[in-house]
């Protein structure tokens, strides 16, 4: 029997290989996700180890301290350095401070030197030491008005050791520094990030953090273990500081990188699951067709003594073969997918650190299981069907009993109904957060796909016939033959179309969501923003020095200026994120939708979002207690309640005068300003840009530019997601190739007949292609319709603050439908050629 299977496999090798491809694509994506995540984890584990290689203990702020700067870790006084250095257990002590996107080198042409994607670090370096992971490549460590850079940045800016270079600083006044050397980080280079390093006092001065450090690293004296060192340090530290061993720090770093990488890996796996889901339909369809074609053979085998379970096993063994081959190929393909993904993300703006790709045994096991399970599950129904073939079917042509229409309607509805219900729960249910609602929506969506796919066989015939009608009219005989063929096996038409349907549904769902986000964004901009210009850091949305607010206010034609700072505070004992803004001017640049009282809170007042107010039962006039990161505590009067947090992005509003007094750094997230009436917009803007140029990382944009930039970013995200989803289309594509190849094979005799009665090769080819086009258009139409549904459902499920209006990108959707049709024609290319090349006599005499 095994031989029978082998021979069968050999005979249908072509068809099985096509099936194989659809499994391999999905499996390769799974394996690629694992490989990429594992490789990244290894690289970052190494980075973490390198970074703290010689560190026996680290002193840092106790976690839980309020820390206003969102990007940096908490800072503390550098007095501790001397105290710790006096301990006999400490051999070497070094305090350091780090920050990112605060200073930039400026090249000879006056342009900012910065990478696209990775950050620019500014920090302190005392030169090579037991605890430092930087190594000098060239020159010497920085002293005083000197700086060292990484070689990539030096090359990009055209700087050589010894040069005087200009560096923009958060103080707003660029300074000149001498490049004393270039450095390298650990073993693995800098991973695309740029480094600007000064000695500690200079760093503290240029960052405006005099007397502060964010970490102190210590090397233990000979014979002192890291644990003993930590024990010795702890008693001399103030309450707000703690000491931990280097291993602890490494572990924490690895964990935080690790959890980020896990999220990343899981997102990829999510896409892989979608691709596998699509493959399942293709594999199922191929096996179903293969079984259908071999009905007579199974009947013959049954009549000479093969048992039902032998037939079932034959099909399943064949499927296992495909599964094994797909797993192996998919595993290797995973390496390719991983490198491809790396490139895709690099193109999307991220930079991937270099390192070898690694396949862990867990990857192998998971991939093999996934490949086998997906293939076997897909082949299960066809195998059961094959086993049901009766001996008599060996010599009865046609007359296959199909499952009754009622069965389809009932089972299809039984899947569709819960799918729709789950989608409704995801959209309108109150329980759980956005993530769980989207999860429910996703499961509902998957069930909807399956249900629609099952039901689609019901209307595939008439719809395909309707789509084919104009084609039949235009293309004559080949057109009507194509139309007839596309509608004659509705089950196959719907199964083939399903893969395309799911792929396009997801892609157009993403398109709808993207359009909705853009529309919402437009709405927010026009409703909530009344500023003429916006100033912000566009690369990563990082904070920058608030001194700019006053500088801009000094410009003649600038009317109102407000900076918006995001800070952490304790309100009535609860940690909250709040926004400090210039409350006397802020309301004229941003509209918060004040519904009660005023947003001009003043230094002794506070305003909050309506949702928060009703949740906490707070009204205008109430007092709330606020504690800042410096420990200052005060009671503020609630002055107003607002309902639009789209721009300020926090639920509590305070005056910036108050917040900056009680935070270490006077940073803001963005600045908005208006022109005085009758000011020349071009001249005023030029003046603003002139002032802002001291901070080269900042963008100055008006509403339209802001909108365009946001659109660009969102569109880029859409490209990345769509790029991943295109894999579904690849799978669907092979599905169409497969179906058409099988159809041509099945109809060999008929094709011979057509040719014998005078159809030309060209006509035959065109009829096969049109048939594929009709099937694909059917799938594309369904897909885009479902995509509309899914996308709109997602918009409803996601909170209004993020997206609230449903936007429909009609142009894109129509393009996807046309794309579907074209995909079909291309997929049918080879099957059509094959059909056209069939020898007429051979074809007619085929069984």
């Amino acid at each position, binding site marked *: 029997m095994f031989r029978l299977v082998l*021979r069968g496999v*050999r005979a249908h090798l072509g068809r099985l290989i096509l099936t194989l491809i659809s499994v391999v694509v999905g499996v390769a994506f799974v394996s690629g996700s694992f490989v990429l995540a594992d490789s990244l984890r290894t690289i970052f584990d190494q980075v973490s180890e390198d970074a703290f290689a010689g560190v026996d203990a680290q002193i840092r702020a106790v976690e839980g301290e309020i820390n206003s700067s969102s990007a940096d870790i908490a800072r503390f006084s550098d007095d501790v350095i001397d105290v710790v250095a006096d301990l006999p257990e400490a051999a070497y002590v070094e305090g350091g401070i780090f920050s990112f996107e605060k200073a930039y080198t400026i090249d000879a042409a006056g342009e900012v030197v910065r990478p696209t994607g990775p950050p620019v670090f500014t920090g302190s370096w005392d030169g090579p030491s037991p605890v430092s992971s930087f190594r000098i490549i060239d020159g010497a460590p920085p002293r005083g008005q000197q700086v060292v850079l990484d070689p990539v940045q030096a090359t990009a800016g055209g700087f050589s050791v010894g040069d005087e270079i200009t560096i923009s600083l958060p103080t707003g006044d660029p300074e000149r520094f001498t490049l004393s050397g270039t450095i390298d980080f650990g073993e693995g280079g800098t991973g695309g990030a740029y480094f600007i390093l000064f000695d500690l006092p200079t760093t503290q001065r240029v960052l405006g953090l005099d007397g502060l450090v964010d970490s102190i690293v210590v090397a233990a004296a000979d014979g002192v273990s890291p644990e003993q060192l930590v024990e010795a340090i702890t008693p001399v530290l103030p309450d707000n500081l703690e000491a931990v061993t280097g291993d602890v720090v490494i572990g924490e770093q690895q964990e935080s990188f690790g959890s980020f990488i896990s999220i990343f890996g899981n997102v990829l796996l999510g896409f892989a699951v979608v691709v596998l889901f699509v493959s399942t339909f293709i594999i199922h369809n191929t096996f179903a067709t293969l079984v259908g074609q071999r009905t007579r053979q199974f009947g*013959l*085998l*049954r009549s*000479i*003594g*093969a048992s*039902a379970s032998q037939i079932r096993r034959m099909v399943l063994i064949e499927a296992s073969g495909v599964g094994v081959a797909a797993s192996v190929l998919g595993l290797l393909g995973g390496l390719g997918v991983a490198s491809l993904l790396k490139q895709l993300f690099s193109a999307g703006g991220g930079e991937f650190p270099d390192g070898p790709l690694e396949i862990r045994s867990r990857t192998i096991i998971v991939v093999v299981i996934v490949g086998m399970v997906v293939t076997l599950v897909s082949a299960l129904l066809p195998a059961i069907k094959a086993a049901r073939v009766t001996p008599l079917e060996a*010599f009865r042509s046609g007359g296959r009993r199909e499952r009754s229409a009622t069965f389809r309607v009932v089972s299809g509805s039984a899947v569709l109904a819960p799918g729709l219900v789950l989608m409704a729960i995801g959209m309108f249910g109150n329980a759980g957060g956005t993530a769980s609602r989207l999860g429910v929506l996703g499961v509902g969506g998957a069930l909807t796909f399956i249900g629609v796919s099952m039901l689609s066989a019901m209307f595939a015939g008439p719809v395909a016939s309707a789509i084919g009608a104009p084609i039949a009219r235009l293309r004559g005989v080949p057109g009507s033959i194509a139309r007839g063929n596309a509608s004659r096996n509705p089950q196959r038409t719907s199964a083939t179309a399903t893969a395309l349907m799911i792929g396009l549904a997801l892609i157009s769902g993403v398109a709808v969501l993207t359009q909705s986000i853009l529309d919402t964004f437009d709405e927010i901009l026009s409703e909530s923003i009344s500023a003429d210009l916006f100033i912000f850091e566009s690369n990563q949305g990082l904070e920058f020095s608030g001194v700019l607010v006053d500088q801009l206010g000094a410009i003649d034609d600038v009317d109102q200026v407000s900076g918006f700072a995001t800070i952490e505070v304790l309100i009535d004992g609860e940690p909250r994120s709040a926004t400090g803004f210039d409350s006397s001017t802020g309301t004229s640049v941003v509209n918060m939708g004040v519904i009660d009282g005023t947003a001009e809170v003043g230094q002794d007042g506070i305003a909050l979002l309506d949702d928060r107010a009703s949740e906490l039962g707070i009204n205008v006039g109430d007092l709330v207690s606020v504690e800042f990161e410096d420990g200052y505590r005060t009671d503020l009067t609630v002055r107003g309640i607002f309902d639009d947090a789209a721009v300020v992005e926090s639920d509590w509003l305070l005056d910036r005068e108050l917040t900056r007094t009680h935070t270490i750094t006077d940073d803001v997230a963005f600045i908005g300003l208006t022109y005085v009436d009758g000011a020349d917009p071009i001249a005023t803007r030029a003046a603003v840009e002139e002032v802002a140029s001291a901070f080269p990382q900042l963008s100055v944009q008006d509403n339209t530019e802001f909108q365009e930039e946001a659109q660009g970013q969102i569109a880029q995200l859409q490209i990345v997601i769509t790029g991943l989803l295109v894999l579904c289309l690849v799978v669907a594509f092979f599905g169409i190739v497969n179906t058409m190849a099988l159809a041509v094979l099945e109809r060999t005799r008929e094709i011979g007949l057509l040719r014998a009665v005078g159809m030309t090769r060209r006509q035959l080819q065109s009829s096969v292609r049109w048939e594929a086009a009709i099937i694909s258009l059917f799938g594309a139409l369904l897909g885009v319709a479902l995509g509309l549904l899914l996308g709109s459902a997602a918009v409803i499920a996601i909170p209004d603050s993020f997206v609230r209006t449903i936007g429909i990108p009609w142009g894109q959707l129509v393009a996807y439908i046309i794309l579907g049709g074209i995909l079909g024609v291309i997929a049918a290319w080879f099957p059509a050629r094959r059909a056209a090349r069939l020898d007429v006599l051979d074809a007619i005499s085929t069984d």
Partner: protein
Amino acid sequence: MCWQTADMTATTPIIAAAAAVDAVKTYGSGDAAVTALDHVSVEFAPGKFTAIMGPSGSGKSTLMHCLAGLDELTSGEVTIGDTELSTLNDRQLTELRRTQVGFIFQSFNLIPTLTAEENIVLPLTLGGRKGDRQWIDTVIDTVGLRDRLSHRPNELSGGQQQRVAVARALASQPTIIFADEPTGNLDSNSGGEILAFMRRAVDEFGQTIVMVTHDANAAATADRILFLNDGQIVHDMSEPTADKVLDMMKSIGN
């Protein structure tokens, strides 16, 4: 084993290779109902070659399918050897087809992906058996396929393919072989050869064969001919000759 059975049933006459008692087969229901077999009772003696004739649609194939356990009767009984088919479940029926029954069809007799030899031993390999190699060699030599064993069906002529089918039916030494128009697709030469092989199988190996045919000359090579019309046996002819057959066919045709 065989002797024992004979002893135990010594009081009854020799057990028929296959028999039908009051067999009825109806297709469809209500107005559209077709009675393909109308209370047919018949026995096939072991070691005999029986032909079944009758006009198209008279129920010949239906009778064969029901006798071979490929299809179920609406009412009545069918036995192969001493086994009553209606008592068997699908697994037992499969086992019966594998070991006790051989079948030769008019066309599409072979698995296209297997060689001639593999096709011949397929019923044995399906049952995980090797079979009697000497017997299989005898069969292969009898049908003259020695030099074609490694060929695929599409590399064989129609006559050769049918010889492979005959060899396959003989290979498992079944109780009875059913052949439904085995020469229907062949020219008279190849058809004659196939008939000769079946005749030899009966004469030399004591094989029981039941064959449906439309050809009077082919039928005349059998030991006995059953004539069917409208689902009923209308005549049972022994020691047939071509002339007698032709006369009979004419009378049924009228």
